[in-house]
C-alpha cells in the first residue's frame, strides 16, 4: 500500500508525480494549474470569496470524508451570499505516511462534489508534514463566486415577521463525528448531513428574490447561526421547540451525553430567512431540491428581545436559547 512520504512534499519530481496522478487526474479542467496562479476570465459580476480550513478527525466518516466536506463547506459559504461558485482552490497538508489510496478517495470525492454544483478547482497546493506534525490530512479550500443579480443576503437583513427555515434535520454531522471518534462508546447509525447546497439555493433564488438571510450552520450549529443573525440584525428570534427537526438517533446520542443538537455542527444545513409571505414557496422549492427535501419552518423573527433567540417550550413558556458557548463536552450534570 503506497504511502505519502516527505519526498511528495519536496517540490521536486515526486511532488509533480503526486499532482499528476492524483490531483490533476481528478480535478483537471481548463483552468486547473500546477503553476503559481491560475488565470481566469473576468467574471463580470460582484464576487463572493470565502475560505475554510478542514481538520476533521477521522477524515472518513459515515456519509462522507474530509474531501467532500472541504468542497461543501466553501460551496455553501458562497451559496450563502447567493453566489454561484465559480472557482475553488485547495491546499492540502498531508501527514507523512498517509495512505495514497485514501488520498485518492478524498480527491475523488472532491471531484464528484465539485461536479454536482459545477465549480472548477483551479489551483492547489500540497505540503507533506512529518509524522506527528499534523493529524492525517488537513484541507483548506477557498472559493470565488459570482453573486446572482438581484440577490443580496446578510445576517443583518433579517426583519421582524420573517420566517426562519432550516433546510433539514439538525446536528447530524456533529453527532456523526462524535460517534466515529468513539470516545464515548456509543453506537448509532447517524450519517453526516454533509452536502453541497448551491443547486438548492440557485433554484430558490430563481423564484424568490427577496431572500433576506442564508447562512450555513457549520461549526457551532444552528443555534450559533441564529444568535449571529439576531445580533447582526438586532432582532429577536422566536423558535418553536417542537418544530425543530432532530433525528431520533441524534436525540438519543445527545440525550445520553447531555448535549444540545442546536449546537452540534451541520455541514449541509442552512438557515434561510425570508419574508413570511414567501415561506410557503420557499419550502416548496426546497422540498423539491436535492439535500433540502426535509426543510422546515422553525420560527419567526420578532422585535422582542433583540439580540436574543428564544424558544417556545412544550409547556408554552418562552425561554432563552442559551447563547453559543464553549467547546462541547459531554456532561453528567
Amino acid at each position, binding site marked *: 500500500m503506497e504511502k505519502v512520504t516527505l519526498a511528495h512534499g519536496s517540490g521536486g519530481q515526486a511532488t509533480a508525480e503526486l499532482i499528476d496522478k492524483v490531483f490533476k487526474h481528478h480535478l483537471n479542467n481548463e483552468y486547473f494549474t500546477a503553476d503559481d496562479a491560475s488565470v481566469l476570465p473576468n467574471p463580470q459580476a460582484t464576487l463572493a470569496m470565502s475560505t475554510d480550513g478542514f481538520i476533521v478527525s477521522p477524515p472518513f466518516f459515515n456519509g462522507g470524508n474530509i474531501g467532500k466536506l472541504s468542497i461543501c463547506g466553501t460551496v455553501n459559504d458562497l451559496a450563502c451570499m447567493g453566489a454561484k461558485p465559480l472557482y475553488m482552490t485547495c491546499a492540502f497538508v498531508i501527514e507523512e505516511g498517509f495512505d495514497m489510496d485514501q488520498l485518492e478517495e478524498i480527491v475523488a470525492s472532491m471531484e464528484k462534489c465539485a461536479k454536482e454544483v459545477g465549480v472548477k478547482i483551479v489551483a492547489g497546493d500540497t505540503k507533506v508534514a512529518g509524522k506527528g506534525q499534523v493529524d492525517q490530512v488537513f484541507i483548506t479550500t477557498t472559493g470565488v463566486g459570482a453573486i446572482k443579480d438581484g440577490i443580496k443576503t446578510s445576517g443583518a437583513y433579517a426583519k421582524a415577521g420573517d420566517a426562519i427555515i432550516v433546510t433539514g434535520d439538525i446536528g447530524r454531522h456533529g453527532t456523526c463525528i462524535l460517534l466515529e471518534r468513539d470516545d464515548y*462508546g456509543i453506537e448509532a447509525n447517524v450519517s453526516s448531513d454533509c452536502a453541497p447546497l448551491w443547486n438548492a439555493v440557485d433554484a430558490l433564488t430563481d423564484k424568490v428574490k427577496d431572500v433576506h438571510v442564508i447562512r450555513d450552520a457549520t461549526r457551532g450549529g444552528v443555534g450559533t447561526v441564529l444568535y449571529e443573525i439576531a445580533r447582526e440584525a438586532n432582532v429577536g428570534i422566536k423558535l418553536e421547540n417542537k418544530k425543530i427537526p432532530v433525528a*431520533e*438517533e441524534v436525540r*438519543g446520542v445527545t440525550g445520553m451525553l*447531555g448535549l444540545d443538537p442546536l449546537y452540534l455542527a451541520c455541514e449541509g444545513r442552512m438557515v434561510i430567512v425570508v419574508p413570511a409571505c414567501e415561506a410557503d414557496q420557499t419550502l416548496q422549492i426546497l422540498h423539491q431540491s436535492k439535500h433540502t427535501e426535509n426543510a422546515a419552518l422553525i420560527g419567526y423573527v420578532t422585535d422582542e428581545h433583540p439580540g436574543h433567540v428564544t424558544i417556545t417550550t412544550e409547556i408554552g413558556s418562552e425561554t432563552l436559547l442559551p447563547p453559543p458557548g464553549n467547546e462541547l463536552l459531554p456532561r453528567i*450534570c
Partner: protein
Amino acid sequence: MCVGISAKVIQMKGNVAIVDATGAKRSVSAELLDDLKPGDYVMVHAGAAIAKITDDDENESKNLMEELLGE
C-alpha cells in the same frame, strides 16, 4: 446533578447491559440493579443503569394529580 436518560435493555452480557435510547446504543454497567433482562427500561447515568423504570412520566403525573385533586 445527574443527567439521566431512559433506555431499553436490548441485551444482557453478564454484568453489562446493552441499552438503546432512541437508536443510541451503549453498554452500561448492570451491577447496581437486580435481575435486569432484555425489554426492561432503565434510567442510565454516567454509564450505569441506576434504576428500573416502571411507568411513563405522563401516566405517573396523571395518577399523582388525581390523587392530589382527590384529597
